[in-house]
């Protein structure tokens, strides 16, 4: 059982770590949350029947752990905000910290931030986590057609945001050149 868990950890710890960060778990808490996820995995491994992909299963455990932590965090600050389950899933990562100033990741995050949350989640799971449409449908609890249409909308928004960013960067380059 341990070797099985170790194999899952070796293959999926990065996915779990990224997913927890993207679900709003703070950088300081992500280690604890990750341990919780794998302890649940160990606990429930025997009952995992492989009806869904391993990554989908891990995603649902991450969501449970992240939601609990966020709720606890809110309670601790006496600032309880009622949120719909849909709103609780926000896969934006705090990449500024996690990536330690990796410029590409920061740009990626900036663009993702400009996309509608529901579309963004599908984009992240499909393009970054390489989940299939079926897996995304199951993980987010939405019909497959909805997953595809959100992906298309997210791609369009991503392109527009990237184009805007590039135009702005060109303009700033020109301005810097003109000033020198």
């Amino acid at each position: 059982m341990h070797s099985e868990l170790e194999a899952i950890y070796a293959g999926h710890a990065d996915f779990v770590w990224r997913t927890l960060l993207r679900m709003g778990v703070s950088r300081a808490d992500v280690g604890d949350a990750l341990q919780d996820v794998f302890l649940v995995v160990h606990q429930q491994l025997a009952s995992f029947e492989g009806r869904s992909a391993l990554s989908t299963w891990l995603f649902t455990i991450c969501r449970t752990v992240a939601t609990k932590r966020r709720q606890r965090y809110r309670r601790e600050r006496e600032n309880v905000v009622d949120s719909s389950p849909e709103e609780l899933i926000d896969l934006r990562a705090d990449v500024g910290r996690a990536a330690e100033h990796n410029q590409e990741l920061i740009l990626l995050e900036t663009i993702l931030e400009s996309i509608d949350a529901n579309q963004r989640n599908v984009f992240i799971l499909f393009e970054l986590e390489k989940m299939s449409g079926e897996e995304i449908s199951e993980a987010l609890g939405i019909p497959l057609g909805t997953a595809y249409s959100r992906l298309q909308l997210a791609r369009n928004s991503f392109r527009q945001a990237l184009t805007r960013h590039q135009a702005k960067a060109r303009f700033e380059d020109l301005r810097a050149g003109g000033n020198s």
Partner: protein
Amino acid sequence: MTDPIRWSEAGDSATETEQMLVRSGQAQQMPSEEKRALWSQIAGALPPAGVPTVAQTAAGLGSGSLLALKGLKALCVLAAASGLVIAGYHWLKQSRPAAVEKPALALAASLAPAVTAPVSALEVAPVAPQPEALSASAAATQAPASSHASQLREESLAVMAARQALRSNDAPRALHLLEQAQQRFKKGALAEEREALSIEALARSGQIARASTRAQAFLTSYPRSPHAADVQRFITK
């Protein structure tokens, strides 16, 4: 319906920049050192070979409600609470901050109803230890605690108590407990955790300037601490 082709695999249909960005997102990894350390902690919380599983222990108790890992976590903390060291000994040897919170999780888990979803195994609630829940079979597998383990256990419990006070919005009590712990465990393994908690407790009790000064000192002493980001928030200058 067939999935569209991913941008990272699409060749001409995605621009070079789009491909580069999604690939950088795909490649984002946790730091390898952190990955190894976390695995050690997880592995340390699992039952060692030859020790009866907690599911068996739970069955012996007739509770029938505990599942393997949840029960194991309970066992670890019950060992700590009763001054005994069982499987949780390996876990207790860890000085990472995550280890500090585990007993609270475990304790809550030991008292929770049957697991129907991952949620119940993760609930955290301030509850009192229940040493009577230890079964004879579990006790038979226990080894005597070393002085180091015993010291760490005591320090861990002291930090837990302070954390619980802070989470209950009793910052003055948390501060008092942390000061006591500082006297008692001057060179303790959990100094970093104690100081991070102290800074938060100072800020919450209105001592903003002191919290800020100590936060700066903390970041100098522990620049790579997992608490660094949280502590940073208390720097006011």
